[in-house]
């Protein structure tokens, strides 16, 4: 009896590990965690994401012309003010989870991984496959949307930080965000 109990316990553990590693179940198939969106189209990049105005006067410049070949050349520095090269988009409600408050669980997915054909942590340009848009992704703050004596329901999302420093191609960029959850 004791031996049987031990065998069943190990068998249950082995089955659970195999299920998690060989065929990750979609979160929406779980009764406890569900994805609220399968596709997220983020707000397009706008001027006010990076700068205040499209034309910026830099004030006065004093120069002295010098002879360079057949021309007179008045050279000088042009100091352009910086712009915001990291643009943030938040998806506040991407998944929902029913939790037992008696159990300690992490505040969000165990793992967030964004990838595309352009590699990890980057979106790929649909029109120009060689162009990539670097992205960092992190969990958005968790929100409790319902609570009762049996537990609470929380919603979470992600924050995507796009690095525009090296991007020169406009167009549509896309990729896949993979989320792993602990099932409470």
């Amino acid at each position, binding site marked *: 009896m004791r031996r049987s109990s031990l065998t069943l316990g190990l068998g249950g553990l082995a089955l659970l*590990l195999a299920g998690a590693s060989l065929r990750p179940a979609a979160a929406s198939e779980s009764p406890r965690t569900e994805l609220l969106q399968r596709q997220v189209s983020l707000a397009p990049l*706008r001027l006010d994401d990076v700068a205040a105005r499209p034309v*910026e006067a830099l004030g006065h410049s004093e120069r002295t012309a010098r002879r360079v070949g057949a021309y007179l050349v008045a050279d000088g520095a042009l100091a352009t003010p910086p712009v915001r090269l990291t643009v943030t988009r938040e998806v506040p409600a991407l998944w929902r989870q029913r939790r037992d408050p008696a159990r300690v669980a992490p505040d969000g997915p165990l793992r967030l991984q964004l990838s595309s054909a352009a590699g990890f942590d980057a979106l790929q340009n649909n029109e120009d496959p060689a162009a990539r848009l670097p992205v960092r992704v992190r969990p958005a703050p968790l929100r409790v949307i319902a609570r009762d004596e049996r537990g609470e329901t929380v919603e979470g999302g992600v924050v995507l930080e796009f690095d525009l420093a090296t991007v020169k191609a406009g167009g549509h960029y896309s990729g896949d*965000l993979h989320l792993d959850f602990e099932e409470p």
Partner: protein
Amino acid sequence: MRMSMRALSRACGLALAATVAGLTVSTPASAGDVKVDIDLTNGVTILYYHSTLTVSLNAASLIAPTTGCTGSNPYECADTPSAAPNSTNYGANVVATYAAPATPTNGSINPAAVPLVLQNVWALRALGGSSSQTTVRVDVGTGATLNNGSSSIAITGVDIGTTVGTLTFAANRSAIVADPGLGTPLNGFVALQLNLSNALALGTYSNANPQYTITVTGT
């Protein structure tokens, strides 16, 4: 002995349950994929420019003879006179009329069409839009005549670009550049063709109206 075994059994059972529960907490139990996309198609363009410029012109820089002269400023340009002309008596004076000394022009700039390149007077950040290129245009402004009392300097043509090559002057000129992105601005020049024929006095030549206008389109 039996009692002891049961106790051991309970202990093992508790240990197993604890172990299983601990492993369950650390194992991802569900996963999902979300398609993510964003458009960089609206076009973001930022133009930087110097709103006012003061350029000092040294007249000596317009004249840089390469032959027949010594010195720098002033230049000393000796000319061998032609054969001595016959002298003519004008009353009590004897006048020998020579041909005027030759004025070396090699290397000097035509003062009626002085090309003045204003380097790094505009810069551009551009990403997205209807194409991957941006058009930068310059027009002669409404203040194309710079005045200094009765003297003046006229701007008779303009040109624009990012790298100075062969200049072509006209009332307006355009340059098409590849979008540089937003990270590193692309700097450019504006060239003015100056007519100094009526610049007869030293001093400051100015006009309150703009001498040129830069326009960016295409994104």
